[in-house]
């Protein structure tokens, strides 16, 4: 793996860990009582942690893809909760602060790093570890 590939991998892992921590914190501090949303937060946090750990350990490329999909899905859910509502749940702006902003930025970063990794792989040296 190239040094750029390594940085991308570590970046994706860290960003996933950050969004996982935010979701876990909110789950523990009250969100678990919100129907459906509570379960979704627990799932998001636990899967984020799992992906982050395995990506850091040098897991295959599909783990980065899955991590990016999880982050993208979380962003869509975030958008829905601020607009039309999600499973009968809605919130305003960047509340709860700072976790809403923190996890949104981490998720955008995850998707961006994954795209950078894809572009790098297409135009750069193939990543032999991804097969």
């Amino acid at each position, binding site marked *: 793996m190239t040094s750029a590939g390594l940085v991308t991998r570590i970046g994706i892992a860290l960003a996933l860990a950050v969004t996982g921590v935010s979701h876990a914190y909110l789950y523990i501090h009250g969100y678990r009582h919100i129907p459906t949303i509570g379960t979704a937060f*627990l799932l998001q946090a*636990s899967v984020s942690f*799992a992906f982050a750990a395995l990506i850091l350990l040098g897991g295959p490329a599909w783990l980065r893809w899955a991590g990016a999909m999880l982050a993208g899905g979380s962003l869509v859910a975030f958008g829905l909760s601020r607009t039309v509502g999600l499973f009968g749940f809605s*919130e305003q702006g960047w509340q709860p602060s700072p976790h809403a902003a923190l996890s949104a930025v981490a998720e955008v970063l995850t998707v961006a790093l994954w795209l950078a990794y894809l572009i790098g792989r297409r135009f750069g040296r193939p990543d032999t570890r991804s097969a």
Partner: protein
Amino acid sequence: MTDAAHTMSRRQLIRHSAWFGAAVGLAVVGGEVISHIAGTADAARVQGRPTLRFAQVSDSHIGFTGKANSNVASSFSQAIDRINDLGYPPDFVIHTGDLTHLATPDQFDQVKQMMTGLRTPHVFTVPGEHDSVDDAGQKYRSAFGAGTRGDGWYSFDIAGVHVIALVNTLNLKKLGHLGADQLDFIAKDVAALSSDTPVIVFSHIPLFAMYPDWGWGTDDAAQALSNLRRFSSVTCLNGHVHQVFSKTEGNVTFYSGTTTAYPLPHPGDGPAPKPVTLPAGKLHDALGIREVSYTKGQNALALKERTLQ
């Protein structure tokens, strides 16, 4: 790219399966750890039982006749049984309005008699717009208004929690309305409370703009809520919309409750909120009650939605 490039060897398949298994395993372990931490946090705060436990029931619409529910009295009776079967007597039961469908004396009498079957020390109510269709709520107050102020609003303290019951169904134009007298009452009512007092607010129509086009909001709620912003925990429970919905705005969380009578469409589904007729056997999944508990030291109330099924 050749076909060979897409072909996975047995060794690769085993390796990917191992990574997949590790992902699933780690996710399960992570979920268990987070749940355990949440459970430990609860256990550290809970000593024996929550500080306060109550049940919310709403929109019984006693007297309604229609395809959406041919027997609302039976559904309400099941809701009462559901509350009585919670496994403990709730500290109180709140009915968040539309007790009756047309506010006739017979309907008030029927719903009042039915609620005597609730095994709880206290039953509280707020009126819905259906409870004041022709007399600005006079019959409602005759039946349920004892000890209330103004047009039926009141407050009380229980287990260290301050509870405010509001009337936003009189003087309706399109949205719910509290009015100057009630806003004045709220300001004075909470003035002496310390900011760490948990506050619970009951109303029929949502105090947040759930869907103003259908009147699902209260035009002067912002003024009422301005008096509550300083409190660390404010929970507003309402009925009216016949469906579970929640929203948070800073320290204030709003929870719309479901009904025991008939479902209404989701916001914006169709031109108006008309009763929805569900396929046979599906109605009781849409009806229900809500179990609410508060534990001292926690900001958020714990809610459990229970269907009548």
